[in-house]
C-alpha cells in the first residue's frame, strides 16, 4: 500500500520536474549571472547621481527615455554576450587579433583612464554615502579599498559571483524607497504616454548623460569576459540572452524608481541638488528618514559593487590584450603586470579621494568625456567583429539586427559627440 503511494508521489515529482519548463527554469538559474551583474554594476555612483538629477531637475518628463535606453542596452549587450559565447574570447582579445597592436595599445590606455575615472567616482560615492551614516571618509575609504581587495583576491569566481548577485538584490532598496515617495501613478502613466522632448541645452545634456551612464565602454569588456569565464557554450546561448535582457530591464526599473522618487519629492518642492548624497539628505524631511537611509544605503552598495568590479575588469582586459599572465591563481611575481594594474587602480581610485583639495568634480567630468569619446570607437569595433564570419560563423548579425545595431551605434555616436560638446563648451 505504502509502496503504491510512494510510487505515485515519485511519479508525480518526476513528471513535474521533467516538464520542460521547470527544467529550463533550473538551467536558467544555473546560467544567469553575467548579464544581470553587468547591468547592475552599471547603476553605479555616477548612474544614481544622474538619475537623481534627472528626477530632481526635470520631474517625470524624462521617464520615457528609459524605454529606448533599455532597448539600446539590450541590443548592445546581446551582441557582446553572443561574441563571448561563440568565440570563447574576450573583447580585447578579439580587438587585438583583428585590429593589431597599435590600435589596441591606444585603446587600452584610453580604457584605463576612463575606468580609473569611474573607479574614483565609485570611491567618492562610498565616502559620501558613509558620511550620511556618520562614518568619516578617512576611515570608510581605506576600509572599503581593503574590502574590495580581499573580496576579489581571496574569493574565487563562483563565490564572488554569489556575493555580486546578492548585491544586485540590494538595489531593491531603491524600489522600496521609491514607494515611500508616495508616487502619483496617474502622472507616471501620462509621462510615459506623452513623451516630452525639448531642444534646450540642459535638457539635451541630461538625455545624453542618462544614455552615457547606462552604456559605458568597460561594460562590453566585462560582460564578454564573464560570459567566457563562465564557460557558456553556444547551446546555452538562449539563456544568456534572457540573462542579458532581464538584467537590462532590471537596471532601468531601478533607474525608474530613483527618478520617480526624486521627481515626487525634490522636483515637486523645487529643491535643487548637486549629487546623489544631496538627494539622500534632502529626502529625509520629504519622504521620511527611512527612505533617505535606504537611498544612501543603495548608493553605498552600488559604489562598493562597482568598485569591486572595475579595477579587476580593467586589469583582465588590458592583460588579455597584451598577452600578459592574468589570473588570481597566480602569485604576484608570476603575473606582475596584472597585479600592478589592479593595485594601481584601487590605490589611485581610493587614494585620490583622500587627497585634500582634489578637484574631484573635474576628474569625474573628464572621465565622463573620455567615456563618451571611447564608446563609439568600441561600438564600431564590436559591430565589425560581430559581423566577421571567421569569428562568428553562422552567428553573425542578421540583416534586421544589423540595421538596428548600426542605427543604435549612429545615434549613440551622435549623443556621445553631443556629450563631449556639452562637457567641453558649457
Amino acid at each position, binding site marked *: 500500500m505504502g509502496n503504491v503511494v510512494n510510487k505515485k508521489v515519485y511519479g508525480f515529482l518526476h513528471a513535474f520536474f521533467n516538464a520542460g519548463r521547470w527544467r529550463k527554469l533550473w538551467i536558467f538559474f544555473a546560467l544567469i549571472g553575467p548579464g544581470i551583474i553587468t547591468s547592475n554594476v552599471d547603476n553605479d555612483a555616477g548612474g544614481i547621481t544622474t538619475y537623481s538629477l534627472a528626477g530632481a531637475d526635470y520631474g517625470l518628463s524624462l521617464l520615457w527615455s528609459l524605454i529606448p535606453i533599455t532597448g539600446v542596452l539590450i541590443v548592445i549587450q546581446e551582441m557582446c554576450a553572443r561574441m563571448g559565447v561563440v568565440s*570563447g574570447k574576450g573583447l580585447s*582579445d578579439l580587438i587585438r587579433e583583428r585590429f*593589431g597592436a597599435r590600435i589596441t595599445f591606444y585603446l587600452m590606455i584610453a580604457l584605463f583612464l576612463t575606468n580609473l575615472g569611474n573607479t574614483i567616482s565609485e570611491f567618492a560615492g562610498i565616502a559620501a554615502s558613509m558620511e550620511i551614516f556618520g562614518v568619516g571618509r578617512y576611515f570608510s575609504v581605506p576600509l572599503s579599498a581593503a574590502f574590495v581587495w580581499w573580496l576579489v583576491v581571496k574569493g574565487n569566481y563562483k563565490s564572488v559571483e554569489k556575493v555580486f548577485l546578492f548585491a544586485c538584490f540590494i538595489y531593491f532598496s531603491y524600489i522600496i524607497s521609491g514607494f515611500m515617495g508616495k508616487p502619483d501613478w496617474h502622472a507616471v502613466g501620462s509621462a510615459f504616454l506623452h513623451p516630452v522632448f525639448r531642444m534646450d541645452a540642459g535638457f539635451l545634456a541630461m538625455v545624453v548623460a542618462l544614455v552615457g551612464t547606462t552604456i559605458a565602454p568597460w561594460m562590453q569588456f566585462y560582460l564578454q569576459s564573464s560570459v567566457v569565464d563562465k564557460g557558456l557554450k553556444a547551446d546555452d546561448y538562449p539563456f544568456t540572452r534572457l540573462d542579458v535582457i532581464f538584467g537590462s530591464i532590471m537596471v532601468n526599473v531601478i533607474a525608474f524608481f530613483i527618478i520617480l522618487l526624486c521627481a515626487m519629492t525634490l522636483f515637486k518642492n523645487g529643491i535643487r541638488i548637486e549629487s546623489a548624497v544631496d538627494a539622500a539628505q534632502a529626502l529625509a524631511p520629504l519622504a521620511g528618514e527611512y527612505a533617505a537611509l535606504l537611498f544612501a544605503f543603495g548608493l553605498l552598495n552600488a559604489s562598493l559593487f562597482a568598485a569591486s568590479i572595475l579595477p579587476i575588469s580593467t586589469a583582465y582586459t588590458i592583460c588579455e590584450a597584451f598577452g600578459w599572465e592574468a589570473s588570481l591563481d597566480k602569485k604576484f611575481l608570476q603575473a606582475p603586470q596584472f597585479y600592478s594594474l589592479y593595485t594601481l587602480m584601487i590605490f589611485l581610485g581610493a587614494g585620490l579621494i583622500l587627497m585634500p583639495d582634489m578637484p574631484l568634480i573635474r576628474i569625474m567630468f573628464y572621465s565622463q568625456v573620455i567615456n563618451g569619446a571611447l564608446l563609439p570607437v568600441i561600438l564600431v569595433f564590436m559591430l565589425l567583429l560581430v559581423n566577421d564570419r571567421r569569428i562568428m560563423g553562422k552567428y553573425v548579425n542578421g540583416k534586421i539586427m544589423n540595421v538596428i545595431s548600426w542605427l543604435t551605434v549612429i545615434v549613440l555616436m551622435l549623443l556621445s559627440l553631443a556629450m563631449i560638446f556639452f562637457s567641453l563648451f558649457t
Partner: protein
Amino acid sequence: MANTIPNYQNFQLFIFFSELLGKTIVDPEGNAVGRILDLIINIEGTYPRVTGVQLRLKSNRRTVVFSCLDFSFSDGHFTAQFTGEDFPAEKEPVPSELMLKEALLDKQVVDTDGAKIRRVNDLQFLIANDELYLVHVDVGFQGLLRRVGLKPLFGFVLHALFDYEMADQLVSWKFVQMISSPDLLRLTIAQNRLAQLHPADLADIIEELDIHQRKAVFNALDIETAAETLEETDPKVQVSLIEGLSTEDASDIIEEMSLSEAADLLGDLSPEKAEGILNEMERDAAEDMKELLAHPEEMAGGLMTTAYPSFPPTCTVADALKTIRGDIDDLDLIYYSYVVDDHERLLGVVSLRELLAAEPEALLSELMDTRVVFVNIEEKKGQIAADFFKYGLLAIPVVDDDEQLKGIILFKNLLEVIAAKLGR
C-alpha cells in the same frame, strides 16, 4: 686593403616583421613595384622560409601575392627585389604555406619551452643567402612598443630616468606551437611541439585557451598524452573536452586514464554520454568502472581504484613479481601487494621493497605485514586524509562491511581533497 673589409657596422643579419611591413619592393630595373602587406612562409623545416609576399601594387593599388624575391642588405639598407625572368609571377596557394599576419601576428601561441601561452608581438627573420627565415617570435614588451612605434620614446625615458635598457623577449621558433586555428594545428601535426610539454603543463595551457583552441589542441594530442593531460585538467574542462568527442574516441582516451580518475570523470558526464562510453569500453574495464561509479565521490568508495595487485597467501614472491610485471600497464599502483583469502578478505600487505629483497621462492604469507591500515568503503574523505597523514602511506586499502577488499585509495587522488584545504 681597407675597402675589402665588409662594413660590419651596417651589417645586419636579423630583421623584424614590423620593419618589413610597408617596405617598398623594387623590380630588377630598380623601379618601385609596391609595398609589402604580408609575407608568406612555408612551415616545413625547422625554420620556415619566406616564399612569397603580398603586395599592394603601386600602379593600380591592387593586392597581389608574388613569389620570387631576393632579400639583401647593402650599405645598411634592406632591399627586397624581384628576380628571375618570369616576373611578375602571381603565386598559387600551397597547402603548407601560410600568411604571417593572418596566422601569427597578434595571435596566441604556445611557448613549449616556457610552458606558457604567449601573444605574438613581432616576428624576427634571419637573412641568409638572399632568403628570409623565420627564427624567433617576439613576445616581449619591447616588441609591442616597436609595433606601436613608441619604442624610441620609451627607450629614451627608461634610460634617462632609471638607466634601464629594455631587452627583447624572443622565443625560438623551435619552441613555438601555433594554435590560432584548427587548420594550423592540422598543418603542423607532423612537427607537433605540444608533445614536448609535461601533461600537467599542457593541462594548465588547455584550461587557459578558448573553447575552440582547447578542442583543437586536445584533438591534436595522441591518446596516451591526451589521457595523461585529461587527468590533470579541471573537472569542468574535462567534461567539455569529452563531450566534444565521439563516443569511440572518448572511450579510447578514458580507458588510458587511471581507473579512479576515469570514474570521477564519467560521474561528471551526462548519463547518456557516460552510458555510451561505458558500452564502447572493454568489458572488464567497464565492469570496474561501473562498480566505482556506484559510490559517492566524497566517500572512500568514490575515491578508490580497483587496479592494484592482490595475491593469495600461498603465492610465491617470484610469481607475484611476474604477475606485477605482466600487468604493469593496467595497474595504478605497484608499491603494495595486498594478500587476500579465498573470500577476498584482506589478510596483509607486502611492499615492493620487501618483494625485491626476499628470496624468489618465499611465500607471501611469510613476508606479509598483518597490521594493515584500512578504511571502510563509506569512510569520509576527511578521516581518510587523517589516516594518510598519520601512517605516511602511499595507498590505503578499502574494505566493505564483510572485510572484503574492494579497492585502494592512492595518495595522489586524495591530494585533490587536501589541496582544497591548502587554499589552492
